[in-house]
């Protein structure tokens, strides 16, 4: 193929349309320092043993790979349920703004948790619960109520009626059920009567109790727990007026009594002070996670250390380039363009010393020692080589001098 006719994905022999890593579809990859990965998985495995479900967090700077790591956890849990017996649900806690009532308080975060669980999952759990041998001849709602362990009797009864009445068969709309679950106002008329509820979810305690009870149901049905993968927790730094309510909600989730609904909280920043106060202060939540502010990094794994040495950055780049490459196409291109003395299929379109130069430049600033910046800069240099190649219809190799010219190193 003539260089003129190529798109960037042809020029770089990508196995995807863009020179990008997608946190969700590339979740099987874990880049960077393997020790950090091992620490994270070790914490998660211990949590399964001690707390029934993971209860921990991730911290890292902009672009360090927090979202990617959360999806990687989800991938591992899906792939290896024997070692990681929990179903993951991803949700973003941002934006949080106490100036806007719709965007603050636990009710808002509770809505996100319910959206993450979703109708399909609730239906599946209720239907599977109904198929359990011991439930076949029993009143489904009564059996559910007996499974629930959190909240008062009225809450258990109401939740059981809503789930059994609306999620077992797909014969009627679940809008009213969702309104009750979200603690939204029920439509006028006999909505509460139709739902069979005797109380609303009146406060954050009730909302958390409802979710924990759903967790009880999931455990009984599938033998697994639930893990909420909560991204962008730094937005909770702005919690002020609703501190007590949200702190108490997290405390309920963290409590030893809850062994079915776990969480992995990812927060932007560096160091212990980055954990939002609503979680860190008072330290009763941390103590339930088995840490204090002094050894907080045992529960909140710091992703800054994913790339803690230049060699980590180079190995990140090597893994990345290999992962996004179509080997067959790359080998064919190297042969067609007679580039074997300059390039390998893994590194194309970069020479080996160009990649060392990239590492040298990016390592010189803390701001560029993160996954996102590395990917952005490699993509930028590759695109520059591609466009230069198109000008002359020649394959331009991104060598050390080319990297310097694009990245501004002298």
């Amino acid at each position, binding site marked *: 193929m003539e260089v*003129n*006719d*190529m*798109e*960037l*994905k042809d020029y770089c022999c990508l196995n995807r*349309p*863009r*020179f*990008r890593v997608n946190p969700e579809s590339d979740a099987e990859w874990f880049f960077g320092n393997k020790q950090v990965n091992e620490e994270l998985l070790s914490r998660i495995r211990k949590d399964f043993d001690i707390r029934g479900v993971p209860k921990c967090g991730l911290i890292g700077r902009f672009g360090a790979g927090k979202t990617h790591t959360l999806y990687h956890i989800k991938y591992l849990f899906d792939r290896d349920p024997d070692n990681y017996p929990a179903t993951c649900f991803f949700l973003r806690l*941002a*934006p949080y*703004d106490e100036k*806007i009532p*719709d*965007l603050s308080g636990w009710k808002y975060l509770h*809505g996100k948790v319910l959206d993450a669980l979703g109708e399909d999952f609730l239906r599946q759990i209720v239907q599977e619960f109904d198929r359990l041998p011991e439930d076949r001849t029993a009143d489904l709602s009564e059996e559910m109520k007996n499974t629930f362990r959190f909240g008062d009797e009225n809450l258990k009864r109401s939740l059981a009626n809503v789930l059994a009445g609306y999620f077992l068969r797909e014969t009627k709309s679940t809008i009213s059920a969702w309104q009750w679950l979200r603690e939204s106002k029920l439509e006028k008329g006999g909505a509460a009567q139709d739902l069979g509820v005797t109380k609303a979810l009146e406060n954050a305690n009730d909302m958390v109790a409802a979710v924990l009870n759903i967790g009880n149901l999931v455990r009984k049905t599938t033998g697994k727990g639930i893990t909420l993968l909560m991204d962008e927790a730094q937005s909770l730094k702005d919690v002020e007026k609703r501190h007590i309510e949200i702190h108490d909600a997290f405390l309920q989730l963290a409590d030893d009594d809850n062994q079915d609904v776990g969480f992995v909280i990812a927060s932007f920043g560096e160091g212990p002070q980055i954990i939002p106060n609503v979680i860190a202060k008072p330290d009763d939540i941390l103590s339930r996670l088995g840490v204090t502010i002094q050894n907080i990094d045992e529960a909140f794994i710091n992703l800054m250390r994913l790339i803690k040495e230049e060699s980590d950055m180079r190995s990140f780049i090597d893994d990345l380039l290999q992962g996004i490459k179509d080997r067959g196409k790359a080998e064919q291109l190297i042969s067609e363009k007679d580039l074997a003395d300059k390039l390998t299929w893994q590194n194309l379109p970069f020479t080996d010393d160009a990649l060392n130069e990239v590492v040298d430049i990016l390592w010189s600033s803390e*701001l*560029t020692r993160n996954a996102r*910046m590395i990917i*952005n*800069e490699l*993509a*930028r240099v590759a*695109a*520059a080589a*591609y*466009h*230069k190649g*198109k*000008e002359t219809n020649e394959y331009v190799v991104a060598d050390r001098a080319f990297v310097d010219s*694009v*990245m*501004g190193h002298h």
Partner: protein
Amino acid sequence: MRWEHRFITVVREGGHTLFFERFVQAVEVASLVVVSPWIQSLEGEPLSLKDILWSVNKGKVPTTIIMRSPEKEPLNRDAAELFVGCPLVTLYYNNDLHAKIYVCRCQPFGFALLGSANLSGRATRALEVGLLIEGKGAGCDIVEELELLGKDDIPNRKGTNLIQLSRVRHFG
């Protein structure tokens, strides 16, 4: 309707003026993407191209512009000169371009305009229509996708030529 469900608005008039009025007031802008076949200097309009580039420079906003070449479309000549004079702008030409996409990534969430209006004075008066998308709820992924269209997809197509690579390294 919940807050994050209100992420899209049909824009019947004002087009890109509405978008750029928001852009100049936005905070912590991480990037600006403008994809428009025809771009003029907008002299005499409420916001001229110089005003927009002043905001780009002031906020050090990494900016990607894709337009048709001024050799093919002489109307683009003044705008092209202004873009080449701005070190924050990465400029591409694509003469097959017909899409009109405007994306601003900022705090607390970005926004995008997808519509029929070119970035020209005529578009402020002609009958145009567009969708203003807020990067919240389901709009978050749409704004991100539109940004990637402007920063990754169209630039790396066969018919697109790089004219100027931003001379400033981006940390965002």
